[in-house]
């Protein structure tokens, strides 16, 4: 328990000292998969809370219309596909990170975004549309910070050069696209089969009744 608290405390240190931090969670046993999952859960929690309790002006699709299950599924899906795509590629391009390493650095990198989202809930209740620029600015800071952390995590975990990391990131996103495409294709196929069955039953019922 004490160790876990220490690791969570360390994740805050990591957000401001990413190079040292990512190195130490991989090599010096300063982080664990458990902490990574806690951080991921924290991110999910803040984004769901933002959806439910964020001010209407910045969150017009939220409130009672907000679908928390969809949001959770989206985050988990993207997180998982990113992990899988990155792992597939880095194993090919002699990256040093294992799948669990990838899960770790991605989850740790989400911390700034979670904090910003948490800050945004009271802020969005106090700001009007005229002050929207301020809101988006703070939101963008969180986004850029998290993006930078993911990138640095990639560099440190896989021991890549910057150029190679950029390339790998681009290819990973492309691979994510392919995975989603295949998933949709599969879903579409299932839908067509179901549609065929329903049409068949309908047609039969019409024939029988007439």
């Amino acid at each position: 328990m004490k160790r876990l608290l220490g690791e969570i405390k360390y994740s805050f240190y990591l957000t401001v000292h990413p190079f040292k931090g990512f190195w130490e969670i991989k090599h010096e046993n300063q982080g664990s998969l458990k902490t990574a999952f806690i951080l991921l859960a924290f991110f999910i929690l803040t984004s769901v809370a933002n959806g439910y309790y964020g001010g209407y002006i910045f969150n017009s699709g939220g409130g009672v219309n907000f679908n928390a299950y969809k949001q959770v599924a989206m985050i988990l899906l993207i997180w998982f596909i990113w992990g899988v795509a990155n792992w597939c590629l880095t194993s090919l391009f002699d990256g040093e990170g294992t799948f669990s390493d990838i899960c770790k650095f991605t989850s740790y990198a989400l911390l700034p975004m979670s904090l910003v989202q948490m800050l945004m809930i009271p802020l969005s209740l106090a700001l009007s549309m005229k002050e929207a620029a301020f809101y988006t600015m703070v939101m963008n800071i969180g986004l850029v910070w998290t993006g930078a952390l993911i990138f640095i995590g990639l560099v440190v975990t896989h021991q890549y050069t910057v150029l190679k990391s950029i390339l790998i990131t681009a290819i990973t996103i492309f691979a994510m696209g392919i995975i989603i495409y295949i998933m949709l294709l599969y879903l579409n196929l299932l839908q067509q089969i179901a549609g065929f069955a329903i049409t068949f039953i309908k047609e039969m019922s019409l024939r029988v009744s007439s």
Partner: protein
Amino acid sequence: MSDFRRVKRVMAALTVGLAAFAFSGVQVSAASAAENERSYTYNQAGTPVYTPDTYNYKGAVDLTDGTLSAASPQDLFVAQTGELFIADTDNNRILIFDKDFQFERAVLRITDENGQVSLLNKPEGIYVYPDGDLLISDTQNNRLVRCDREGNAKAIFGRPDLAGVSQDDAFLPIKAVCDSLGRIDVVARNIHYGIVQLDADGTFLSYIGAPKVQPDPFTLFWRQFSTKEQEKQMLQFISTEYSNLYIDEKDFMWGTIKTLDNDALLNAVASRDKSGGVTPIKKLNSMGKDILKRNGTFAPLGDLKVASSGTDTAPSRIIDVALRGDGAVYSLLDITRGHIFTYDSNGNLLYIFGGYGLRKSNFQIPTAFSYIGDDLAVLDAGLGKILLFTPTAYVKLLFQAVDLQYNGDFTEANALWSRIAAENTNFDYAFVGLGKAEMNGGQYAEAMESFKYADSVSNYSNAFTLLRTQKMKVYFPIVFGVILAGIASVILYSRVKRLVKRLRKRSAGGGIADGS
């Protein structure tokens, strides 16, 4: 044997099940047929939602002089006297009905100033001057005729000297109106430059309300290499013909445009384009500038949701506009689905009704329509009849509220909007109206609730800002006062502490001094 029986039993069960399924299907289709009749509107998300019934069928006027019924009538004009003028196109005549819908007379022959008699030939447009003269678009005779109701011509305008149009192209006027200065505005078939404006004696002045065409560099480049014939063909792609005209009391000209590109229209809906670049309706001032207000969630474009595949994919085609009174409310007639769209002067969609079908209240080929008071008269070329519709209590309430808002009487409108909102919770705009009225009354929190219900973020933000300012005014002095008091007390405390210390020191020192 038992196997056979089991199969039979299963078959029987299956048949019963399928029959039940089929029966439920029949019920659904009957229900959807009934839904066809229902009025609806679009919410802020662009989803169709039902409204209470808006217009009830009142009856039909048979357009006949006693022997011959109207054939493919193309235009309807309701004069200030309440008389109805119908361009009975395929019978080559103008029919006049009095305000009780009784046949008055027909105009077939035109006698010009020299006593020469000529027949009308497929007239497609009719306009009536305030003094009672008729302005007939005598389409196949390539002329416009101004005459009295006996057919005595006061002026006959032949083909004007049209700029940019070849002499080989016939002048086919289909609609014409006249402004208070006596200028005649004409919509002619196959003229793509806009509305033809003639002066009082029929000489060509200019084209107005021309659609702005912005040629892309590629087209301009391609132009360099094309022949005259090709250029002419290219012109047809960019053409925008007006289909109908209406001139209101303030000389604003309302023109409808039917020939718009399908994709451009659908795109304008999808992107919530309110610039008026792609629009089936324009309100032109005397300079020919479009001044129609498009302040609704969507611009007046007709139907917003059309099927993405199948037979029902075409966007609305607006063929006529009708103004109620001074234009606080106007309606558009769509030929694609026979829908009638009603908007207020700000461009907010109020409701949609009407449609094709075989019921007596359905249309076949609607060609023109007009308000008679609050009632609507729709001319149908397929039926050769005028269908009359009368507003329900709900619409009368709506008209009242819109009129009050139009005249700037917001407090009166408040009560009405809240009643309308209670009658139709689907109608977002009523909640926007209610919210604005509440905001004017200083009930910011209630206004925020209304705007949130109507999903109007900008209005919500305005109400919220006002509420925040109000709350700040109340609580800021207290909060600031508490903070000031806190700081003051800290300072005071330290001062007092120092003072006490000094005093103590002095008294201690004094003691020593005394002692020494």
